[in-house]
């Protein structure tokens, strides 16, 4: 593989590292399996038939390309640069998650695996996984923290309607981190027939790379759409970062365009200083969890601390390793946004644009009042509206003190 000097798009290296981050920190039982996954992924990536099937499903099943939309009223209200949306919330199942699930299930089938497992927090990745399992007729088990099962009943029922088995995880705080632990425990005992569809650009190599590649359809499309409509590249990209799959999907195709600035938005919960947040880069430090080295929320002894965010999809104490690397290299800037700021942006987007964004996406939108004025009227700010907010209306009602 040839390396372009000063390119930000050639990571990870052959051993799965993004600088000091990433890697394969897994139990020995899983090592042969993830080496095999890497081998099959390399072959799939080089196979035009695999790419063709992926593209076909994205077009006819997911509904791609997703629209690129000029948010005229929001632009007018905020003043400054033009605000454009990449409309990932219009995908089948209502978020960007499905792009990755299509890619991974095709890989699972190619490897001859006959069962699928996945972890989920709010349930969006669980629903997307259950969806592709139904589409391809594979049995599916979703691990979900018992706390999340209780507060995300509509998504639990959706998964069940789609034929998935939902296993409530009681260990730890019974949220996403614990669901991921339990999925790894299950996987290690069923390595022969089971494929683990990880929902974000994290975990052991090659997951961060392959999830990024499948999600890069977002940035590739946006690049082509914007060039064709305006003849220009964007001046700023904005995306929310939990594990970071929608952000890396948007950012990666632009990383080597030096004039395109990028900001990833982390969930600051009740504020970084409160200690109740999910901002691994702003408020964490490097460590090893769930198969990779990356920034984590942890104490002085390396014990992982609980994250908090109003957005269940951002409520995780780690972040994908490529974001840790982009953060340290300075190519991408990362800003924290609080629960309250996200709630304001959620309502503004509803009223001005007629779009109910996911609370995750509302974090990206919440950065706009801070940054839009730094740009001229002829400059373009592109926001990834990664998901729709129908799933969040109960949480938002609760936060606003409204009884439904």
């Amino acid at each position, binding site marked *: 593989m040839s390396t372009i000097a000063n390119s930000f798009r050639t990571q990870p290296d052959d*051993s799965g590292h993004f600088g000091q981050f990433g890697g394969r920190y897994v139990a*020995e039982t899983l090592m042969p399996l993830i080496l095999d996954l890497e081998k099959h992924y390399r072959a799939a990536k080089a196979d035009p038939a695999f790419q063709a099937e992926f593209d076909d499903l994205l077009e006819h099943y997911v509904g791609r390309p997703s629209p690129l939309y000029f948010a005229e009223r929001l632009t007018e209200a905020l003043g400054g640069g033009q605000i454009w949306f990449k409309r990932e919330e219009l995908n089948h199942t209502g978020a960007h998650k499905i792009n990755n699930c299509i890619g991974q299930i095709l890989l699972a089938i190619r490897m001859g695996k006959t069962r699928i497992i996945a972890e989920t927090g709010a349930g969006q990745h669980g629903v997307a996984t259950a969806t592709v399992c139904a589409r391809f007729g594979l049995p599916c088990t979703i691990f979900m923290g018992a706390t999340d099962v209780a507060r995300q009943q509509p998504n639990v029922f959706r998964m069940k309607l789609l034929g998935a088995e939902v296993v409530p995880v009681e260990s730890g705080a019974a949220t996403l981190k614990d669901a991921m632990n339990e999925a790894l425990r299950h996987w290690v005992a069923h390595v022969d027939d089971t494929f683990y569809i990880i929902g974000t650009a994290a975990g052991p190599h090659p997951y961060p790379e392959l999830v990024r590649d499948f999600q890069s359809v977002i940035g590739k499309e946006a690049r082509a759409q914007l060039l064709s409509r305006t003849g220009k590249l964007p001046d700023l990209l904005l995306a929310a970062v939990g594990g970071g799959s929608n952000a890396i999907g948007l950012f990666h195709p632009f990383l080597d365009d030096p004039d395109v600035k990028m900001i990833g938005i982390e969930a600051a919960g009740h504020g970084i200083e409160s200690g109740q947040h999910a901002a691994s880069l702003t408020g964490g430090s490097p460590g090893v969890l769930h198969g990779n080295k990356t920034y984590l929320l*942890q104490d002085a*002894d390396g014990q*992982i601390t609980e994250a908090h965010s109003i957005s269940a999809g951002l409520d995780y104490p780690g972040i994908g390793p490529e974001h840790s690397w982009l953060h340290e290299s300075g190519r991408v800037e990362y800003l924290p946004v609080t629960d309250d700021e996200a709630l304001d942006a959620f309502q503004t987007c509803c009223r001005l644009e007629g779009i109910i964004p996911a609370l995750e996406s509302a974090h990206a939108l919440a950065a706009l009042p801070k940054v839009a004025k730094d740009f001229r009227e002829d400059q373009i700010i592109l926001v990834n509206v990664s998901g729709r907010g129908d799933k969040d209306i109960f949480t938002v009602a609760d936060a606003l003190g409204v009884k439904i």
Partner: protein
Amino acid sequence: MNRIAATFAKPRPALVCFLTAGDGDTAANLDALVAGGADVVELGMPFTDPMADGPAIQKANLRSLGAGTTTADVLASASAFRQRHPHIPLVLMGYANPMVRRGPEWFASAAKEAGVDGVICVDIPPEEDAALGPALRESGISPIRLATPTTDAARLPAVLDGSSGFLYYVAVAGITGMQQAAIESIEANVTRIKQSTDIPIAVGFGVRTPEQAAEIANVADGVVVGSALVELVEKYGANAPEHIRTLTASLADAIHGAR
């Protein structure tokens, strides 16, 4: 000869016993292992996210952390054990993040100072050896690697390269304390691995009874028991030491007399 090598040089299989540090009265529980006849003591470092462990050891981790156990406490337990038992090999077992948090050199040197002979890190495979292995070797501590039923012939040399002390053969593809592997499978795999190395092989995961332990001791250099002992701490609390001693003694009798 170091403590681990001296133990495995004896003409009998070794009993390797695991307990989680900070779960109950650690000193009394470890002493009960020694009194019962344990040849090697594995001290578990608690972690919030024990991905390779079944319910028994998961709960022990949470009990320990809930009681406020820190890395300093674990090292103090190790150090005190070494004072009381100058000849019993002591191995720390746990996950990467607590071990590398202050840097691998810091951990290796603190463990050495505490009298630790070996370290088992569940989630550092040979591919990530640089994260901890060089620091351990530099300090004279044995990095003890895991081999599993999925470690095939192509992979085995990488696992053996840089490991010392003993090799921990994980008898089942799975987590600790759950199902037991068939003795035929264990024997075939141990025989296969022995063709490639002189390092002693201890077999663990799913071993609960003296009968199982004796069967495995027939074909391996050592037998590891963890969850069954940890469950005694959960069940008996302050009275755990006498029960730990009784179970350890029956395991030791079965293993030491196996061949």
